[in-house]
């Protein structure tokens, strides 16, 4: 599957590495060229310098052929906007975005977006750990 990831931070790079190794065609985007330094040397996907809030850039990155789009920049609003562009304008079948703010995650989920809050997940995990004891 063709997968586009917006944001080459820790999460983005880790996802890119994993999905590439899993046999997917991965394109990872970021607005900062030096962010791609964290990609492993044997990364077989494409690193694409550009902003996913720009439709033209998304087209160049191959969004029309993408089976999935994942937005993991550090900016919740940027993730929400790019995910909505992928979902509503380009009809990408699977769209996931990260939302640090749990309330915003809940809000965008109510609009039909797959928004994941790492904070809520962490809280959930800690709760379960505490239950085990």
């Amino acid at each position, binding site marked *: 599957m063709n997968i586009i990831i917006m944001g080459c931070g820790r999460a983005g790079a880790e996802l890119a590495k994993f999905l590439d190794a899993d046999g997917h065609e991965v394109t990872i985007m970021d607005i900062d060229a030096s962010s791609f330094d964290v990609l492993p040397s044997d990364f077989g996907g494409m690193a694409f310098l550009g902003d996913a809030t720009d439709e033209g850039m998304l087209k160049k990155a191959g969004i029309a052929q993408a089976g999935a789009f994942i937005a993991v920049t550090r900016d919740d*609003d940027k993730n929400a906007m790019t995910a909505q562009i992928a979902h509503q304008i380009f009809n990408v079948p699977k769209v996931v975005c990260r939302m640090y703010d749990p309330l*915003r995650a809940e*809000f965008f989920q109510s609009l039909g977006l797959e928004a994941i809050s790492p904070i809520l997940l962490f809280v959930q995990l800690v709760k379960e750990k505490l239950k085990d004891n």
Partner: protein
Amino acid sequence: MYIIIIGGGDLGSSLAREFLANNHEVLIIEKDVARCEQLKDELGSISLCSMGSEIATLTKAGIARADMLIAVTSEDDDNLTPCEIAKRKFNVPKVIAKVNNPKNEHIFVKLGIDCTANGVGPVLENIKVLTGIFPLARLLSFKEMESELVLVKVHNSSLVSKSLEDLPLPAGAVVTLLIRQGEGPKIPTPETVLQAEDQLVCLIPSESEESVQAIFASNQ
């Protein structure tokens, strides 16, 4: 009315000043602490130093009773989120977004934020008017009427000595004002005869912009 403005830059603070002068209640949400202090000095305690796209902030700002939310930061994604929250979660009656990248305007519309002010267009059109060499410049868009108020200038010498009623203007076009060098502004009549360099303020259907431009364009 109670109006929440996201972004306290030049545009946000100027808007706030206008609303205050018209006796409206205003709150500016600005993320930059130093800018917030400046706003306090300039406008009094009408700013909240926080992120405008956080639901907690908007709730604290009293968004549930807001009549209007206007997002005018310099980042399109920072404008989109508060508008979506205001419209979809809190049913704010009027939501307006400044769109910095004109190419993003249709994205906002598609996502249900249909009141958009393009940050580039008005300046562009203003400069077109100032240059004096464009046959048509947009002055104002009336989206609900699907009409544009435009300023056209007679560049086409074959129009000189013709009367307004002889121009092939599209159906529904209204010529509202004649500006002629050396004379005061006049309300034209169908019999008004055009002179070189005359300027007309017209209300035209949006889709006819190109054909109107072609009528007035230089014939060289």
